[in-house]
Each structure stands twice: as C-alpha cells, then as structure tokens.
C-alpha cells in the first residue's frame, strides 16, 4: 500500500496540519509520500522532508500551482493517483477545495474530515455537527480522504525523506487568482494554539475584543469568535469557530459571551478543558464547560487579565 499526502503550505513554510495528516497516513500504514505543489516552494518541501514516516517528497514547482487553484491541483493529483491506494489532504479550506475534484476525476467517493482510522478501508467521522459519529467503510479502490487535524497528533520532524522534483504541469486555464486579504496576526493560529479564547455576541462590538487580547497575550492564546460575532462584523470571518468555521481542540478553550449553540459546540467541544463566562446561568455552554462563571464579562475579564 502506498499513501500520498498533499502538503498544506504557503510556498515558504509547511502548515502544522500536514504533520497531523501524515499521522493519519501512519495510522493507515504503508509507504508514505508527500506532494508539495506550489511555486518556489523549496522551503516548504525541505520542511516536508523532515516529517517522520515519509519516504519521499514529490515537488511540483510551477506558477500554475502558486495559489493551489482547485482546478489545477485536481488535475495534478489525479495524474499522480495511479501509484497510490490512499490520497490524503488536511480538511483545511485548501484541502476541502481541491480534494473532491480529485475524487470525482477518479470516479470514487470522498470520505470527509476523518478523526480516526479503524483499518485500511474504515474511518471515523463526525456528522450532524458532531452530534453523531459515523464509522464508514470505503468500497472504492482508491480512498480519497480529508483529515480533521484535531483527530491526530503531529508526527515528529526528525525524518529525512528523499526530495524528488516532478515535471508535471497541469493548468486548466479556467480560473485565475485575483488577490488575497489575509489576516496578519502575531498570535498563534487558531488550529495550532494550545489555548483559545473566543468572544461571542455578548462582546457587543469589535473594540471590546481588546479585553480578550490582554488575556490572550498572557496565555499565548489564539482568539476565536462565534458566528454571531463574525456576522455582526466585530471580527473577521477566519476567526469563526464551529461546524462551518474552524474546528479546534486546544488544552484550554475559554468561551466569553457565547451561548453555546450546537453549531458552535461542534467546533470546540473536544477541547481538553472548557471555561465559560456568561451572565446567563441557563446558557447551554455551561453544559459542556468544566468551569463556569456566571457573571458580566465586562466585570470579570479585567480581573482575569490581572490575575494571570
């Protein structure tokens, strides 16, 4: 069995999700190759070569792959697919974008967002916003899978895989990158942080998120938000935690002014320790919180910052 893992990267560095997706490949078992498709992506490829358990890193370095457009990625991965029994990508917005195209071009199903591997053909994935856990057996010859990074621990980075340059260029010519507005932050990524503090509608406005920043600084935390806070324009969309936003499972999750709708819980209820701060004692968030404080957030946040 041979497994191809598609690397998540920005040409300069490898995203931590890739190391977790490699861990899923290790759990399946077999010879593991990683594909780094990008433009001037040598630095990312060198990092991928260090992922423990990987035998070979394939590098498709071409301007057609600079932004990993789904149309071009779909064609490239399909070209390479013949050598593999399993093709894995992280369930990030990039992986979710191109992987179903690979599955369709190979005429197979995709198993989305697995959180565990039962055997080489059977995988576990949450459905219905995490309110049910499905065990699914794939009947296809090639398994196309996206991996939820909260389900797997990153592999070590002490490997030394062979790096092989590919000459494949697959440019569908039907789409073009126009621009990106990426949030620049000094803080850790939501997906990678060991502490996350999120604000909801209770924060009242974007300005008040400063109350979370002081605490985040002290804890080295990432800042997240509920959909209500994003919709109201308090903070940008990439901060949304939940069923249809980011899925996080840090050691500590602090929910501030968040009621705990099922869609929000879907994104954070696998956190090790959950703290809820809410002035409504009946808020459903308290049903999943290890520690709750029934209080006005404007009173207790400054106290919390001072106490840390």
């Amino acid at each position, binding site marked *: 069995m041979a497994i191809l893992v598609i690397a998540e990267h920005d040409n300069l560095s490898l995203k931590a999700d890739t190391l977790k997706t490699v861990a899923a490949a290790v759990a399946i078992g077999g010879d593991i190759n990683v594909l780094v498709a990008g433009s001037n992506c040598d630095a990312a490829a060198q990092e991928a070569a260090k992922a423990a358990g990987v035998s070979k890193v394939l590098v498709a370095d071409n301007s057609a792959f600079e932004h990993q457009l*789904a*149309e071009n990625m*779909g064609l490239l991965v399909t070209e390479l697919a013949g050598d593999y029994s399993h093709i894995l990508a992280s369930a*990030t*917005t*990039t992986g*979710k974008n191109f992987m*179903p*195209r690979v*599955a*369709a071009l190979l*005429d*197979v*199903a995709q*198993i*989305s*967002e697995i959180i565990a591997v039962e055997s080489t053909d*059977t995988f576990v994935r*949450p*459905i*219905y916003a995490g*309110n*049910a*856990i499905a*065990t*699914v*057996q*794939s*009947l*296809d010859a090639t398994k196309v899978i996206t991996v939820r990074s909260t389900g797997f621990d990153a592999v070590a980075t002490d490997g030394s895989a062979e790096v092989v340059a590919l000459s494949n260029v697959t440019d569908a010519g*039907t*789409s*073009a*990158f*126009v*621009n*990106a507005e*990426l*949030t620049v932050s000094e803080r850790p990524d939501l997906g990678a942080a060991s*502490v996350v503090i999120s604000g909801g509608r209770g924060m009242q406005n974007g300005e008040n998120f400063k109350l979370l920043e002081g605490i985040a600084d002290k804890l080295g935390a990432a800042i997240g938000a509920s959909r209500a806070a994003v*919709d109201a324009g308090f903070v940008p*969309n*990439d901060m949304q935690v939940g*069923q*249809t936003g980011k899925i996080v499972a840090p050691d*500590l999750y602090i929910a501030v002014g968040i009621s705990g709708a*099922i869609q929000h819980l879907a994104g954070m*209820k696998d956190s*090790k*320790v*959950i703290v809820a701060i809410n002035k409504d004692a009946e808020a459903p968030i308290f*049903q999943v919180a*290890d*520690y*709750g*404080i029934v209080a006005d957030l404007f009173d207790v946040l400054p*106290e*919390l910052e001072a*106490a*840390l």
Partner: protein
Amino acid sequence: MKVLVPIKRVIDYNVKVRVKPDNSNVDLTNVKMAINPFCEIAVEEAVRLKEAGVATEIIAVSIGSKSCQEQLRTALALGADRAIQIDTELTLDSINIAKLLQKVVDEEQPQIVLLGKQAIDSDNNQTGQMLGALTSMPQGTFASIVKVEGDKVNVTREVDGGLQTVALNLPAIITTDLRLNEPRYASLPNIMKAKRKPLVVKAAEEFGIDLSPRSNLVKVTPPAVREAGVIVETIEELVEKLRNEAKVI
C-alpha cells in the same frame, strides 16, 4: 443566463439529532426538516442575480424522495422559476449526486451552478467541487461575494487565513458560505404563486448512471458526552483551579 441551484432537504438546523439505539443511523422520525441553510443562501443569491438583470431563469433541483418537493416549493416561493425533483429512495454518495447533477447541467446548460458549501447533515462539503470536476467547470467555493462581469465571475472566498478572490470563466460552479447574503422570507403571495410554478419529477434510474453505493455505513454512535463541570464564584478560584486542578495554565 440560466442559473441552476441544487438544494438538499435536511434536518432543521435547530434540532439536535439523536442516534438510534441500534447504532444503525440517526433517528429522523418526526424530526423537523428544512432546506439546507447553505442552499437557501444559494437560492437567494440566484434571485439577486436575476433581480440585477444578470440571470434570466432559476432552476432548483433536488435529489431525494417525494418529500423534498416541499423544499423545492420553498425555493420556488423564494424566487426560483421552476423545479426538478430527481426521485430516489436511495441514500446516495456525493459522487453519485454529482453525476446526476452533471446530467441536469448537460441538459439545461446553466452558466452558473450555485450550491451550498456543505449539507449540515452529512457535513460532506464535496458535491459542488465534484460537479466542477465532472463538468470541467472552474469553481469558487465558500463564496462571500459573487460578481459577474462579462464572461467571467469573480468570487471572493472565505479561506482559513482570511479572504481570497478568484476569477472564473463561465460557466462556473459557486458554493455559498454563510455571509454571502441573508435570505429573504417568502411572502404569502409568493408561497401561493409557488404552488403553480412547474415542478417536474424524473426517476433517478432514468439517467442511466450506476448509483451503487461507494461506502458502507458500519455504525453511528453518539459522541462522547461531556459532563457539566462546576460553577466557580470568583476569578481567583477559576485561576487557582486552572493552575492546580486542570493544570492548563
């Protein structure tokens, strides 16, 4: 131009689903069903394209049992012009849904296919992308802004790091994210009018596609339950517990 909007009938988003005691699946008996929220956003976007003079006709299509006609009527009440139900009792993998939709695309030749980014039951997030690959159309997934300009459409996408805009040649696939628009409510006169709009039913078998399952649902179990913890009275107590009991700070 024609816009095709595939919609799915799913559990209402407010309902917390339960797993059947025999772990064969979730229990949907007597559960409130609705149009998938992302599909509703797709219908709304199509209607806005029509109101802006870009789209000329909106066709809603749903694959499922007769009951999904209810959701097609909702789409018609929101402004779709006609509807197609592809009738099947089978639970289909997305690849088979995408293949059926490909046949509808072949027949209707829409310039834009607007789908939801994910169905909130399966949480698959794959049908639109699969349809894109099968039809060789480019795709703008997780859209929060859609702008048609000549023979191209610019789609601003919600990506992990923020926003990304791509330009797609038409015909193209677009999948909706939550902030693309806020769907309107269907007015009573429009609900009445929707009853008279055309809705054709086609049997899934008519399309000559092998719909055999690609996966086998081994079991469905409830998630690990989290016990509610303790309510602490003061921040001092909270910090003490996080330090010494939970040891997370």
